C-alpha cells in the first residue's frame, strides 16, 4: 500500500513536468501544425540557464532559498522565452509557406544546433547544481510510510500554478482569444486585423517559458544535467502531448499526468527496466482506440 502511494506521488510530480513540456509541443502544433523537434533542447538550454542563474545569484551574495528560487525562475523563464522567440524567427518563420517537411527538417537541424552550441560553450561534461532545498515530510501508512520531499511538493505546486495561469490566459484574456482564433482559422484571423505572425511568435515564447519552468524545477531536484538531457524528456513530453490529443492544451496536461503516473506505478510495482516500454505501449493502445488522443478532436479536413 505504501509503495503504491509513494509511486503515485512520484508519478504526479514526474507527470506535471511532462505536462509542462508537452504544452510547448501541443500549442505549436495547434497553431502551425508542426512538431517542434527542437523543443526538448529548449528545455535542455533552460537547465543550463538555471545553473548560470543560481551561480549569478549566489555570486551576488544571495543565500536565502526563496529569493534564489524566485530569481532563478524569473531569469530562466525570461531568457528561455527569448530563445523560443529567436528559434521561431530564424528557423521556422522563413519557411512559413514551404512544405511541412521542410519545417520539420529545420526543427531537427535546430535541435542539433542547440545541442552542439551548448556542448561547445559549456563543455561536454555533466554539470550540476547544489541541492538547495532539503528535507521531506513523512506520512505513516499502515506499517510503512510515504516520503514526500519538499522539492517534490514545490515541483507539484509550481507546475500546477503555471498550468493554471496559462489556462486562464488562454481562456479569458485578449491574448488567449487571439491565439485561439489564429489556431482555428489563420486567414480569417488576419482578415480581422490580428497580426498572426506575432501570435505565432507568442506561442513559441509561451511554450519555451513552460519548458523553462520544468527545466528549473527538475534541475533543482535532480542536480545533474548535460547537453543531451532534452532528448529523452522531449520524446516523453511529446508522447504525453499525443496521448492527450495533440493541439489540445488540457490534453497535454492530462497526457503528462497519465504518462508520469503510469510510468511511476509500473516502475515501482513491476519493473523499472521496462517502464518506458510500458508507457509507449500505453500510447499505442490509446491511439488504437482513440486515434486523435484522449481530448483531441478528429482532424477536420480544411478546405
Amino acid at each position, binding site marked *: 500500500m505504501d509503495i503504491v502511494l509513494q509511486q503515485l506521488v512520484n508519478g504526479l510530480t514526474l507527470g506535471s513536468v511532462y505536462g509542462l513540456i508537452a504544452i510547448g509541443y501541443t500549442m505549436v502544433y495547434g497553431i502551425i501544425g508542426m512538431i517542434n523537434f527542437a523543443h526538448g533542447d529548449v528545455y535542455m538550454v533552460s537547465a543550463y540557464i538555471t545553473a548560470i542563474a543560481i551561480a549569478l545569484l549566489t555570486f551576488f551574495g544571495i543565500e536565502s532559498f526563496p529569493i534564489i528560487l524566485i530569481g532563478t525562475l524569473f531569469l530562466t523563464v525570461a531568457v528561455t522565452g527569448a530563445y523560443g522567440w529567436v528559434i521561431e524567427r530564424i528557423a521556422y518563420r522563413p519557411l512559413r509557406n514551404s512544405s511541412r517537411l521542410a519545417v520539420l527538417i529545420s526543427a531537427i537541424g535546430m535541435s542539433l544546433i542547440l545541442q552542439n552550441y551548448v556542448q561547445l560553450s559549456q563543455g561536454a561534461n555533466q554539470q550540476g547544481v547544489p541541492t538547495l532545498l532539503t528535507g521531506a515530510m513523512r506520512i505513516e501508512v499502515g506499517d510503512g510510510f510515504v516520503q514526500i520531499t519538499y522539492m517534490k511538493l514545490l515541483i507539484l505546486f509550481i507546475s500546477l500554478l503555471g498550468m493554471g495561469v496559462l489556462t486562464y490566459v488562454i481562456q479569458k484574456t*485578449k491574448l488567449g482569444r487571439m491565439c*485561439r*482564433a489564429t489556431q*482555428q*482559422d489563420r*486567414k480569417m*484571423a488576419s*482578415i*480581422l*486585423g490580428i497580426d498572426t505572425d506575432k501570435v505565432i511568435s507568442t506561442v513559441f515564447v509561451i511554450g519555451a517559458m513552460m519548458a523553462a519552468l520544468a527545466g528549473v524545477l527538475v534541475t533543482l531536484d535532480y542536480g545533474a544535467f548535460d547537453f543531451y538531457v532534452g532528448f529523452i524528456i522531449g520524446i516523453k513530453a511529446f508522447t504525453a502531448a499525443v496521448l492527450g490529443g495533440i493541439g489540445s492544451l488540457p490534453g497535454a496536461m492530462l497526457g503528462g499526468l497519465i504518462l508520469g503516473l503510469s510510468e511511476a506505478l509500473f516502475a515501482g510495482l513491476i519493473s523499472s527496466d521496462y517502464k518506458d516500454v510500458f508507457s509507449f505501449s500505453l500510447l499505442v493502445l490509446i491511439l488504437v482506440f482513440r486515434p486523435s488522443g484522449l481530448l483531441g478532436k478528429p482532424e477536420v479536413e480544411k478546405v
Partner: protein
Amino acid sequence: MISINKVDQLYGGTQILWGLDLEIVPGSITCIMGRNGVGKTTLLKAIMGLLPIKSGEITMEGETLNKQSAEKRAYSGIGYVPQGRDIFPMLTVEENLRIGLPVRSKRTKDSPKDIPEKIFELFPVLKDMLHRRGGDLSGGQQQQLAIGRALVLEPKVLILDEPNEGIQPNIVKQIGDVILKLNAEEGLTVILVEQKLGFARRVGKEFRLMEKGRIVAADKMENLNDSLIKQYLAV
C-alpha cells in the same frame, strides 16, 4: 474608392484574372456577377490580400494595397465576409465579435472594450446567442455573426461573398435589409458577389459582369437586361 488596374492573378500555373479593371464608386452597392469559375472569389481574395497578384495595382482611397498584409488591410477599412462564413467554431459568439475590437479602437473613438450596440440592433439573435459557440449556430445565424463580426471593424467597404448560399429565405431578406440600411444610413460601400438575380436586383445599385477573369459589362442595376443575362449569367 477601391480601384483595380490591370490585375493579373495566377493560381498554381493557371491564370485566373486577366488584366482586370474595376472601379468601385464610394457609397454604392456593387454586385459582381458571373457564372461559376469566372474568378469572382479570386478577385475578392486578391482585394483582401489572401492571394498574391502577379501584376497590376489594387488601391483603396489612393493608397496602394498590393504589398500590404491582410491584417493591414483590415486597418485601412475593408471588412470581408467570406463564402462559407468562416466563423471561429470553438469561440463563443461574443469572442467572435471581440476579435475585431483592436481594429475598431484604432478606427473610431468608441471604447475598445465593448462590442458596439449597433451590431445587436441589426442582428438581435446574436445577443441571445452571446455565450454559445460559433460552431453550434445554424447557417443563417452564422452568416449574421459573420457580417456582424466584419462590421465591428467599422469598415468603409464591406465585401460579401455569396452571403445567401444555403440560408433560409427569411434570413436572406433580413440580410438584404441590413445591407440596404447600412448603405442608406451610413453610406457604407458594399461589394457583393451574388448568383441569385432576384437578390442582386433588390439590393444592388451597380452591376459588374465577369467572364474568363475579366469585367465584360458594367452599368447601373436597372440596365441589367435580358440579353446580358442570357449572354453572361444563364446556364
